[in-house]
């Protein structure tokens, strides 16, 4: 069985973090899959999805790290196209994973105690953001 859903995020961009664990869990529950896996795929090029602890200090550290690696205020070749000016977000996105795979065991996400599914969105302005969730198994 393979079931695909899409989650629309309420993201404001600028490295905002959205915890979608419960939404993914509901999709898994409604799928009826007992053993399998869920693929969570970020459908844009200015962010990513990680499995991590949704703790403010950790998020602050991640944001600080990205600001050091690819600061917003820098000239990026991407800006030469003069279409948009989010070069930092594309560089940071390249350092993130655009998908994660979570095992499903006995009908539930097989996550560790401190693990959450976090979408990091770095678009410069709030915009609709989508994450695909594909559940497969039996």
């Amino acid at each position: 069985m393979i079931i695909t859903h899409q989650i629309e995020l309420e993201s404001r961009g600028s490295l905002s973090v959205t915890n979608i664990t419960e939404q993914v869990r509901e999709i898994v529950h409604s799928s009826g899959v007992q053993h399998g896996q869920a693929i969570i795929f970020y459908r844009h090029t200015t962010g990513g999805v990680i499995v991590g602890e949704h703790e403010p200090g950790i998020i602050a550290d991640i944001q600080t790290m990205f600001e050091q690696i690819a600061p917003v205020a820098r000239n990026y070749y991407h800006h030469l196209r003069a279409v948009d000016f989010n070069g930092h977000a594309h560089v940071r996105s390249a350092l993130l994973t655009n998908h994660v795979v979570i095992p499903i065991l006995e009908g539930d996400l097989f996550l560790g105690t401190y693990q959450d599914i976090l979408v990091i969105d770095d678009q410069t302005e709030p915009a609709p953001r989508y994450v695909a969730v594909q559940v497969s198994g039996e």
Partner: protein
Amino acid sequence: MPAIPRLAVEVLEDKYPQRIDFRTRTIFWRLAEELYLGKIDGRSFCRGVVEAAGIRVTPERLEGKLLSAALPHIPALEVLAQLPSDYRIWLVSDYPREWFGGLSSKLERYPFFSPERLIFTADYRLEKLVPEIFPLLVRDAGQPRESCVLIDGDSARAVEAVKCGLPAELYVDAFRLRRSFLLRKMLPEARESHSRSR
């Protein structure tokens, strides 16, 4: 209490079956920010929401529906109730004062929310809520910054608080809040050993 823009979306989608699109939700966010800052009152917020959503309802009626739908998250309050009595708990409300009267009855079972320790964000008359509000909250709490813990259901606000040096917990659910209190040794049971995996 639920975040005001989300509450507005939930009430509109529930009571007036209509999908609130992303652009409209961003207008709700902007209106809510003005509400938090005291630039508009609750009725004006509802007026803006009705206009943005294009829904045939009076702002007064929407306001009533928002207030009846706004419920405190009881499991969170139950965790707070477990804190030893020497912790002082302040309630920071981004709901406007005129709404709070109707909501306070829902908190009656939790007397640790003293009227003397109630802060309305609108009263600060800030230009920008974050990060300007954090040092003011610490000042009004009258405690060293490192002795305070801000508990917020808004991820971005909690993160900005930490960046300002104010310890913060992101409220995800009651289980995690209690676990965080244990890790911070704020609950008596913290002295008991507990295993955890990271």
